[in-house]
């Protein structure tokens, strides 16, 4: 493991190696080097399988954190590669040439977070939403409630209860009082 960590650090400036479990680790790289790192991991380090990739909106530090989960089935170990990308200008190299299925994930992230992957097939097409006109809805600065209120008609008279206090009132009215 640590050899790989050193290797990644030496070659690509990877940092923050963290053993989550005995067979699972995570590491951080710069987003600009993501394709090189992935190619190295796939071809040299034995991580032949891209399990999934996703993004996290770390709005506090102004970045989307992309997470690539890789798996080495022969050695039975996994590696999650994190890469921060600037939230203001989220553009990352596509890795669909390394793993064919990556284009689906990239299309998903394009629609949900607005992260662009230039060259990825059909990346600008609709993924799960049809005719979506609002901002990317998985961004944390997207206000779902406001959007919902503005878009969907509401039935008047709807009341919201705190479940705990509501149930207590319903079930044990004497205790509540």
């Amino acid at each position: 493991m640590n050899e790989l960590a050193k290797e990644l650090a030496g070659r690509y400036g990877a940092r923050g190696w963290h053993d989550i479990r005995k067979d699972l680790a995570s590491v951080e790289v710069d987003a600009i080097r993501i394709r090189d790192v992935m190619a190295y991991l796939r071809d040299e380090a034995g991580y032949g399988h891209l399990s999934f990739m996703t993004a996290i909106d770390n709005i506090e530090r102004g970045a989307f954190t992309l997470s690539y989960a890789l798996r080495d089935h022969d050695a039975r170990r996994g590696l999650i590669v994190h890469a921060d990308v600037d939230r203001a200008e989220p553009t990352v190299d596509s890795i669909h040439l390394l793993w064919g299925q990556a284009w689906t994930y990239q299309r998903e992230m394009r629609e949900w977070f607005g992260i662009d992957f230039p060259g990825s097939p059909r990346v600008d097409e609709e993924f799960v939403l049809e005719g979506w006109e609002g901002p990317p809805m998985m961004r944390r600065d997207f206000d779902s409630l406001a959007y919902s209120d503005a878009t969907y008609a509401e039935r008047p008279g709807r009341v919201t209860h705190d479940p705990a206090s509501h149930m207590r009132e319903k079930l044990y009215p004497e205790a509540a009082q």
Partner: protein
Amino acid sequence: MSEKKTIPAPLANEGLPPEERGLFCDAAPREYEPARGAWERFLNWARSESLWLLGFGTGCGAIELRPLMTSRFDMYRYGIQPRPTPRQSSVFVIGGYASVKTLKRIVRSYEQMMGPKFVLALGSCTINGGMYWDSYNTIKRIDQYIPVDVYIAGCMPRPEALLAGFQELKRIIKSGGGEGQNEYARNFDWYKANQKKVIKDWNMPDYNW
């Protein structure tokens, strides 16, 4: 003499590209006069005793329809049976929350059913959004988009509640209240405007025959 006037003008079908407009019927829906008196009451009785529900699970609530068919609840004894095609169904059970994407299919399927047709909305989500009250992609009340005859509250409502809902629906039909189809046709513009407000990529005719 006024027969012609009752036929509304053809729909514009602006959502369709021009080359596709010829592939879809552009007639607008019409109201259909019920029969009169005892005959209509008899027909309504038959309609209520032969409820064929569309086998289209639009949301998680559809899971509650399955037990209805099995031996424990046995909906067949009330004359209710599932039907795989909207053409032959008379009851549409909206199975809980409806996302915008599903709403489009709901509208299409509802319009493809032959009248008289009835809608039974199941679960809190169809009433006021339920737990999806703040979702960016889930409508909050189904009756903005299609006419609803009976609501069944709950999250989820149990099969017994559904059966009660069906009994209520039967009562409504027998009393001559199941005129959702005519209501839809009467307020077609309003319904259509509501639908188009949330369904942005309207790539179907305004009325799906």
